[in-house]
């Protein structure tokens, strides 16, 4: 059997299992919007954790982080991984848990729907929908680019970037459109196990092929010693370091596809268990990802710019056999699809619930599900066009989206934690935050101490929320009580 055939067989097996899980979930899914979009709000710890973690992990971690560590060294771990080990559970507690309670109380299915109902303002829902859409679409593009890139490297160009991207989108559409949330969560368990299992195995196998952990590090010491220490300039200076930490800690709960999965939790106990597991599993995933990049700099020197995004598949191709290369590709595909399915489902649910239902208020529940399936197809076509354009490196695209999501966190937090918070405060926060972010990204606003544009966006969003609320009348007591319960 040729190498290519072995890789193809492993990947085909992975895709077949994914589809079978999707079909089984489809048969268990009722035709109601709550079951299709939220799996009946009955998800327990294991599925919830794998669904959240699988959704959270994209090629940004599996390819973008090794690519970044290739140029910037081990400090990439401290910059990107450590802080989210605390930040993500903290935001699940501060925003996710109260949002889950309010969503269940109001019967809300999408985040935009929740905040529109809570604040008694369809305009808030539309503003949130617009922002979620603007930042999620490019983030979806990073996922598919990662898959196309890996497939091209590991099949030595036999499966082109475009063909691989189309294949991934096609399979993901199939099980997402059919089985909704239950299908995406069940497949996420298998997909998460696939990429976590592979990255741990690859870590020990590649280290072994390089002569052991000590020899791999010695090679880096000899050829690029600066990669083993933390720099004091660029992203590692205190200002950018602190503001990036802020961005990646706050951004995850503002991913609509993450927040919706939190709504699907059965109870607080399931969400607490997810928080406990998060920091531990992050180490298992991120430590190998960073070390692959650092080891790769000694092993395959000379990659320039975004070419380093391919360092992980390059190491796999050099050191592992065809079956393991197939597993590497399956692992990356799993990471891609476990995020892409959640994003497709969430955006299609928002298009259905937050836009279509407002245009056609009498839409039957069964028609909502049909509409969501059609929106999934349309969204996938739009993503495919953007993927072929491949506008920037994975890290740059993700950084843009992350910063945008952060501007929404004051509204997400205050909407479920502050009874006095008003619709005017939410609109002012979203508008001011995004305007400030755009001005900072365009270089109009200064960058004192090297802070990133996201700091301006967050500051303006907080100011907008407080000012807008202070200048508007308190919301009616019965409206607040319906969402947040008695004081």
């Amino acid at each position: 059997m040729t190498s290519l055939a072995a890789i193809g067989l492993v990947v085909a097996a992975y895709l077949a299992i994914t589809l079978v899980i999707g079909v089984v979930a489809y048969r268990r899914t009722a035709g109601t919007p709550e079951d299709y979009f939220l799996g009946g709000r009955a998800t327990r710890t294991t599925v919830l954790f794998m669904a959240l973690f699988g959704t959270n992990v994209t090629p940004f971690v599996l390819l973008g982080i090794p690519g970044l560590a290739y140029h910037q060294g081990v400090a990439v771990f401290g910059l990107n991984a450590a802080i989210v080990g605390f930040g993500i559970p903290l935001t699940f507690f501060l925003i996710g848990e109260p949002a889950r309670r309010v969503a269940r109380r109001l019967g809300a299915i999408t985040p935009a729907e929740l905040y529109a109902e809570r604040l008694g303002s369809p305009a808030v829902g539309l503003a949130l929908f617009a922002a979620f859409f603007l930042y999620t679409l490019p983030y979806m593009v990073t996922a598919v680019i990662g898959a196309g890139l890996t497939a091209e490297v590991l099949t030595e160009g036999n499966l082109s970037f475009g063909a691989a991207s189309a294949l991934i989108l096609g399979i993901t559409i199939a099980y997402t459109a059919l089985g909704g949330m239950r299908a995406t969560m069940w497949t996420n368990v298998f997909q998460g196990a696939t990429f976590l299992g592979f990255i741990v195995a690859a870590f020990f196998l590649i280290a072994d092929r390089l002569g052991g952990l000590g020899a791999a590090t010695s090679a880096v010491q000899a050829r690029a010693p600066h990669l083993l220490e933390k720099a004091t300039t660029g992203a590692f200076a205190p200002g950018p370091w602190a503001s990036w930490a802020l961005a990646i800690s706050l951004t995850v709960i503002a991913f609509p596809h993450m927040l919706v999965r939190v709504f699907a939790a059965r109870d607080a106990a399931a969400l607490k268990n997810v928080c406990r597991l998060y920091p531990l599993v992050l180490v298992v995933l991120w430590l190998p990802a960073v070390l692959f990049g650092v080891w790769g700099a000694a092993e395959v020197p000379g990659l320039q710019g975004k070419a380093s995004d391919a360092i992980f598949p390059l190491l796999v191709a050099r050191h592992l056999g065809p079956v393991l290369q197939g597993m590497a590709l399956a692992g990356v595909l799993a990471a891609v699809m476990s995020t892409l399915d959640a994003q497709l489902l969430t955006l299609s649910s928002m298009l259905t619930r937050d836009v279509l239902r407002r245009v056609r208020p009498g839409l039957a529940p069964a028609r909502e599900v049909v509409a969501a399936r059609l929106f999934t197809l349309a969204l996938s076509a739009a993503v495919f066009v953007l993927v072929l354009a491949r506008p920037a490196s994975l890290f740059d695209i993700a950084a843009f989206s992350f910063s945008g999501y952060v501007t929404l966190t004051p509204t997400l937090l205050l909407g479920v934690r502050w009874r006095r918070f008003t619709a005017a405060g939410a609109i002012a926060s979203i508008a001011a935050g995004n305007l400030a972010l755009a001005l900072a990204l365009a270089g109009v606003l200064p960058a004192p101490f090297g802070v990133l544009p996201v700091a301006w966006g967050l500051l303006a969003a907080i100011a907008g929320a407080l000012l807008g609320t202070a200048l508007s009348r308190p919301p009616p007591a019965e409206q607040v009580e319906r969402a947040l319960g008695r004081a």
Partner: protein
Amino acid sequence: MSAAAHHRLFAVLGVALVVLHVDTWNAGPGELLLGWLPWDLAYHLLWMAAAALLVLYMTSRAIWPEDQDDP
């Protein structure tokens, strides 16, 4: 200890952890632990261990009570 005191203690520990994350003192060359683990990486692994403990505290009933409406 009252619930408010637990919340205050958690907030103080959380702020301390975030301050320790901005570790400017670790910049520059450092030792290799166990012959392969760079000091900067080891520091942040230890930091994550501390974060995991703090998350355990956060998920205790003292900070995060159960939801009476849960099934």
